[in-house]
């Protein structure tokens, strides 16, 4: 029986449709995730004079660059070695030999970070051997570091690629460390390494550094792309505008310890550091979003640094708590849908719970067993989490069904949520990657105490804006 447009329009909002939608096993519709090499080149962009290089077909690289440029409204340099049909048959050795030579001569990088597109992975190119042969052929100087990571897109997502590339870079640079303990080496012991993770809000890095500044904790950001993806307009373009100095990264293991501010995007990197860097405590944690998780971060890092939390920082914290209590009434009891990468979603949910907000639909495209367990625990820990359900490994067409059958007041996630939010007639607060339909969101931190204030501001003011726009004369009030 054929249905009419009107019938289908109604039908896709029903419980019956939702059931059918959740029954699908094969097709994925509007998943909020990208592929591995995007994460890999993102990690690479956080190092000084580093050129991300994708071994494989060129189309992917064009996509990554466009995608990142749209989110940041910044240039994003990455080369591809443009494998085509013949390379599919014979392998990509010649592409690497010629590609490395060209990239090196033309763009003069101090480091080339190589990842792979699907094509190279499917045909099984041996990066290690190929890079070795390129060196033998004189494509690149003997000592030019070329860390590489296999980043097959049929495994994991962009956060997996971030992890693999970061680990490869750190491993490669670590091996270049001179064993002698220099004077500088002893100075380093007071430094703490911070790994931001696949974090699309560059201002987060600046916020962390600001907080650590108040606390008097010296730090080294590993994969610091804040100056690369938020570079000043001066009238002159430079391809390399910042990043973690390679020398510092080489000696990173001599620092006091390492904290990663995301778990799922840093698993292998942290494991590597724990296993290979001597006397170097390292761990990862959920991103410091909201007051509680930021407190966790502050506590952990002061423990690691062996200092007590400064009055100054407590003042800074107090201002955020003030903002939270001032605005609590606008969030308390409100129902939310949240989607994105696991770490971010965990952070947002934790923040909502501490504000008395009620996460209802919590959705991620990926997510390990550990993530699921920890998220369930978080939700169970709060009376405001009782109505929530976690959907790990789902997509935004599922989300639409959830919103239409079990409505909420607001959605939080990246720009791709805008269709579902529109159909459900609720505001979308943009946190995550990519944000391509609003300006400057990446310039505001969403972590740390300032991040908490920002999230409160956006969420509450969006509600109030709605209220004002939709009030009749009688209820259109000055005071809100």
């Amino acid at each position, binding site marked *: 029986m054929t249905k009419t*447009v009107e019938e289908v329009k109604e039908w896709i909002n029903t419980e019956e449709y939702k059931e059918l939608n959740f029954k699908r096993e094969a097709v994925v519709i509007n998943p909020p995730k990208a592929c591995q090499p995007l994460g890999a080149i993102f990690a690479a962009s956080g190092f000084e004079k580093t050129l991300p290089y994708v071994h494989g077909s060129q189309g992917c690289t064009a996509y990554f*660059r466009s995608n990142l440029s749209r989110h940041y409204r910044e240039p994003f340099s990455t080369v591809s070695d443009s494998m085509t049909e013949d390379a599919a048959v014979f392998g990509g050795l010649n592409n690497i030999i010629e590609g490395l030579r*060209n990239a090196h001569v033309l763009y003069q990088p101090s480091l080339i970070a190589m990842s792979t597109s699907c094509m190279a992975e499917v045909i099984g190119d041996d990066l290690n051997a190929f890079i070795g042969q390129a060196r033998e052929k004189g494509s690149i100087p003997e000592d030019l570091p070329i860390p590489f990571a296999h980043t097959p897109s049929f495994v994991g997502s962009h956060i997996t690629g971030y992890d693999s590339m970061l680990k490869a870079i750190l491993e490669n640079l670590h091996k270049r460390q001179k064993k002698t303990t220099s004077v500088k080496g002893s100075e380093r012991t007071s430094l703490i390494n911070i790994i931001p993770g696949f974090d699309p809000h560059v201002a987060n890095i600046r916020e962390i550094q600001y907080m650590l500044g108040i606390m008097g904790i010296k730090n080294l950001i590993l994969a610091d792309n804040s100056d690369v993806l938020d570079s000043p307009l001066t009238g002159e*373009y430079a391809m390399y505008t910042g990043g973690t100095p390679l020398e510092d990264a080489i000696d990173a293991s001599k620092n006091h310890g390492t904290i990663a501010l995301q778990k799922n995007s840093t698993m292998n990197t942290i494991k590597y550091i724990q296993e290979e860097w001597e006397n170097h405590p390292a761990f990862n944690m959920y991103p410091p979003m909201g007051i509680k998780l930021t407190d966790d971060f502050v506590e952990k890092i002061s423990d690691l640094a062996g200092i007590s939390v400064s009055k100054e920082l407590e003042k800074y914290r107090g201002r955020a708590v003030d903002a939270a209590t001032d605005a609590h009434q606008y969030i308390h009891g409100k129902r939310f849908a949240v989607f994105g990468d696991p770490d971010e979603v965990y952070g947002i949910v934790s923040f909502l719970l501490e504000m008395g907000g009620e996460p209802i639909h919590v959705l991620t495209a990926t997510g390990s067993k550990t993530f699921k367990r920890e998220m369930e625990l978080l939700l169970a820990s709060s009376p405001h989490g009782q109505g929530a359900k976690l959907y790990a490994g789902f997509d935004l067409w599922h989300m639409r069904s959830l919103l239409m059958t079990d409505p909420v007041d607001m959605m939080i996630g990246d720009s791709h949520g805008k269709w579902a939010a529109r159909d459900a007639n609720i505001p979308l607060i943009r946190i995550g990657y990519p944000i391509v339909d609003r300006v400057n969101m990446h310039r505001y931190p969403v972590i740390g105490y300032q991040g908490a204030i920002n999230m409160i501001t956006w969420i509450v003011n969006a509600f109030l804006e709605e209220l004002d726009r939709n009030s009749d004369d009688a209820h259109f009030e000055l005071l809100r």
Partner: protein
Amino acid sequence: MLTIEEGKKIIEEVLEAYPEKTKLKREKHLAVHEEACSTCGVKSNVKSAPGVMTARGCAYAGSKGVVWGPIKDVVHISHGPVGCGHYSWSTRRNLADGIVGVNNFVPFHFTSDFQERDIVFGGDKKLEKIIHEINGLFPLNNGLSIQSECPVGLIGDDIEAVAKKTTKDIGKPVVPVRCEGFRGVSQSLGHHIANDAIRDHIIGTKKLDNKTKYDIALIGDYNIGGDAWEAKKLLEEVGLKVRSIWSGDATLEMLQTAPDVKLNVIHCYRSMNYICRHMEETYGIPWVEINLFGPTKVAESLRKLGELFDDHIKANVEKAIEKNMIAMEKTIEKYKPRVGGKKVMLYVGGLRPRHTIGAFEDLGMEVVGTGYEFGHKDDYERTKDYIKDGVIIYDDVTAYEFEEFVKKINPDLVASGIKEKYVFQKMGKPFRQMHSWDYSGPYHGWGGFEIFSRDMDMALNSPTWQLVTPKWRQAGK
């Protein structure tokens, strides 16, 4: 404008940075236009050199992104891993009218999200299931297309067999498209493959109702920012009937019935000349190239069309030109003093590296350099009609070359893509995206020129450019 000699010197200097082998390759793609010299053209449509930072995309982008993606009542499956479909999800601005998720599937990302097991065991079974699931969840789809990503072609899947079987099962066309990204050297082969798939599976499978002698198809207008709607308005104003658009805001039926029109009017020659040639050979439908940018070219194009029809249309054309020119002259009067004399460097895809030149010239601007991401010889041949001696031509320009050219030639405006935009804006150069119209548009037709002019003025004369240098650094301080 540079002299031919100056241009040549600049090219030579820029080439110096390359390793020898790459220099020899790249120098064939760079030239200064010289009318008297018939052998001075650039080489094109060959592989990009590895490692140089080309802006080019892949065949999948050309098929899914350009040709197939805009067909709104067909569900396009990005078949393979998740990435390709993610990046091409609603990032081209090919607008479509219809109810999203009901009879319009343009702003969607349907993916088979390949996992390791699919690579190892093949994805055919999964694909079959996907097609049934989609058909169940979106009953008003009029067909499906399978857009193959790189891995599909490497693991030996038989998507043709799946398509054949499921076409029978669901009673709607399921079209396999072999547009794996490693095929060819750019988006271009993807266009061709996509055209061929339409030829083999879609075209001529339905008859056009209510035929008239003025029925035309508008080919190669993807409705970027509403371009095709503007084009349709313009063509219908002179009495022609746009029965089919390829493929902006298109329905499957439009493609099926196209061989019943009287004339194919093509805009983006690069991406759809194949289907025009096919319809000419098979159905005897003539085709004609037009240009929808700027009043001069629009008027020229309308007259060209008039010639192919009767006096009735011819008279309409003259009336329409006379009527619309009033507004056009006003626009020119308003903006020419603000942007006239400014120099532009272009670098785009398809047809825009030549087609937009007239619009710039209508405003008194001058194009001093242009090039194609994925042009062929015939594109560069056609470009000659648009440019003067001394214009620098760059094919598949590398990021390095483009930067150097802009530094040395110092245009007032750079008009290219998202990957280029912020490089030049950091230099303090006004810039407009010419693929997406920088989230503005439409630029086609009479109405489009007004917007185009406003946008170029805005880019060039934005007061923000005056903020770049602080006063303590300005000369004389």
